[in-house]
């Protein structure tokens, strides 16, 4: 039972990070129909910005997080202006290549700025680094902080989409861009907002994750792949699906590693995804493609 509890807790923590990354991917895809392949690099870049603010400039953690989120939003807006808007009428391959180009530019820039400061940069924990006992379970307080932070961020963004005018306009554009245009919604702005919001979520995820792991310029792609897998599992257009997919992948990885062998950690989630997509091609909570008339 203790083993299971440890594995579930570790899977939940890792999974909540995957969920945050997946959320950012889904927000952009839902609004624009494009997978932003620069999402992992936006995540990485925001992590380094937070590191610069917090470690190098001594800015407290919370303001660093907020500034990194704001910076992420701006980077996302720039991605829209540079890689999406000029090509929005081009075919999907061109759009995908443009986002991959942005990813390379961001990674190269990070290598120049932060690549020469050590191979892996540590980010100080926001809680005590000493493990603590909760019942029979030993936990790192930082893990609980990450879990709590991820839940807060998910709730904030859920509220944004459900309760704010901008969020509702994004939902409307995602459902039917032409109808949204006819209703007076400026879809270009909505696309820009989607890219900005997606990158802001990536920024929040990066700052939450940074104290648990280490920062390095090439880290983005590995996180993107896990987030993308979570988004696909969840349905690619469903925000709750992204959260569910991320947490499911985190828990599947932990259980496979604990009960089978550690060599199954990396492949187990993908095996489950393949199985789910065979049975349910739209993902766990994806739209079925049927439209009521």
């Amino acid at each position, binding site marked *: 039972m203790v083993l299971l509890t440890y594995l579930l*807790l570790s899977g939940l923590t*890792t999974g909540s990070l995957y969920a945050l990354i997946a959320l950012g991917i889904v927000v952009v895809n839902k609004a624009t129909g494009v997978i932003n392949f620069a999402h992992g690099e936006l995540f990485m870049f925001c992590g380094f910005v937070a590191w610069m603010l917090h470690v190098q400039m001594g800015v407290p953690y919370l303001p660093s997080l907020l500034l990194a989120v704001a910076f992420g939003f701006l980077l996302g807006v720039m991605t829209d202006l540079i890689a999406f808007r000029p090509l929005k009428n081009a075919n999907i391959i061109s759009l995908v290549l443009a986002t991959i180009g942005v990813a390379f530019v961001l990674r190269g820039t990070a290598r120049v700025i932060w690549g020469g400061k050590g*191979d*892996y940069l540590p980010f100080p*924990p926001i809680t005590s680094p000493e493990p603590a006992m909760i019942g029979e379970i030993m936990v790192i307080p930082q893990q609980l902080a990450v879990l709590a932070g991820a839940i807060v961020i998910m709730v904030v963004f859920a509220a944004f989409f459900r309760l704010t005018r901008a969020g509702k306009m994004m939902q409307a554009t995602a459902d039917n861009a032409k109808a949204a245009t006819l209703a007076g919604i400026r879809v270009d702005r909505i696309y820009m907002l989607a890219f900005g919001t997606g990158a802001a979520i990536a920024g929040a995820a990066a700052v939450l994750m940074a104290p648990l792991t*280490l920062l390095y310029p090439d880290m983005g792609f590995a996180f993107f792949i896990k987030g993308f897998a979570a988004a696909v599992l969840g349905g690619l257009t469903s925000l709750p699906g992204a959260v569910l997919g991320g947490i499911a992948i985190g828990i599947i990885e932990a259980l496979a*590693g604990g009960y089978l062998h550690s060599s199954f950690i990396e492949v187990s989630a993908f095996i489950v995804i393949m199985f789910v997509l065979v049975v349910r091609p739209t993902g766990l909570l994806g739209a079925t493609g049927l439209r009521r008339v």
Partner: protein
Amino acid sequence: MTVKQRLKTAIAGLVMTVAAVQSAQAQVPGVTADTIKIGSFGALTGPGYLYGKLPMNGIEVVFDQVNAAGGINGRKLELVREDDRCDPAAAIGAVKKLIYEDKVFAIIGGGCSNATFAARETLVEAKTPVIIMASVHDGITTPVAPNIFSTALTSSLESAAQLQFALDQGAKRIAVISMRDAWGRSRYTPLIEAFQNKGIKPVLDEEMAPDANDATAQVLRLKAANADAVIIVLYPKPAAIFMRDSQKLGFKPLAVGQTGIADPAAFEDQVGSPGATASFRTISMVRYTPEDPAMEKWRKAIEAKFPGDRLSVFNLFGIGSAQVMVEGLKRAGPDLTQEKLVAALNGLKDFQTDVYPGGITCAETDHRCHKSPAWIAKEPGKPVRVLSATKAE
């Protein structure tokens, strides 16, 4: 013959001699009457700069000291750097540029193993003498290439040394945690062979991905197997996660690292959990820490040449390999050819440098010239210290 005729004859003879010497030198790439051009390749940018730029800085301060003392047989040493960004394709390009455009006489280089391994064929074809400064991949030096020597430890030597160290420390239940990418396999395979050679089996054989962010599952399995030593074949990032989660779960085995985690002080920061690295030991290619008083001369040289830099263990890799190259050039004599340099390097027997734990010995049948790993550790709140130097075969 009049005095005037004798003078004319002497001048003509002198001119012909100088022309002949210059002609002979012109056929030797990178060598003039007063310079020898040495190339270097490795990462100057990106996270791999530790294994590229920093050793190159070490090479440069050795060359400066040699040049200040008059050079080698009157020739000053010049270093030409090329960036391979730890990328195999870029390494091939960098090596080709050094050999065919810059026309260097010899090369001291090779930071990231996979990049250097990719460049091996180009180096062998060109027959340019090479000393590998930091790359550890076995395939770079095995099978023996006539012109490629290594002053870095190799992965199989390190793997055997890891197991021997655990046994020497009294470990009875030794486990392995490894990455299975190209880098990891180049160490994991010889490690398992070393186990087989000793007639023992690891009590558990776990894997971890290079980008893993959690090692709870692996640590729980190792703890359940009651391992008293874990041989770590991981990069610093997953190794830091593993040590942190070991601490979290109260698992405190002897943790045996390798030169992929060459800086225990930086590693302690990366782990970020107080006391988590107390039982961590790792291999160093050099016998001194940068803070050791014996390194004062090189510390001053690095800080003077590269303001803002502090002497690093990676600088020492370059210093050692450059000293070996300098010795080879001296032994090759004033009529320098690449063949003579190769022969001189093949003749090195127990050559002592300022940095390596043991002597450098090369032979025509074995160009793994450095076989003396040093063991280092950092206890919490204390500086890095060298525990011992061993001999690996």
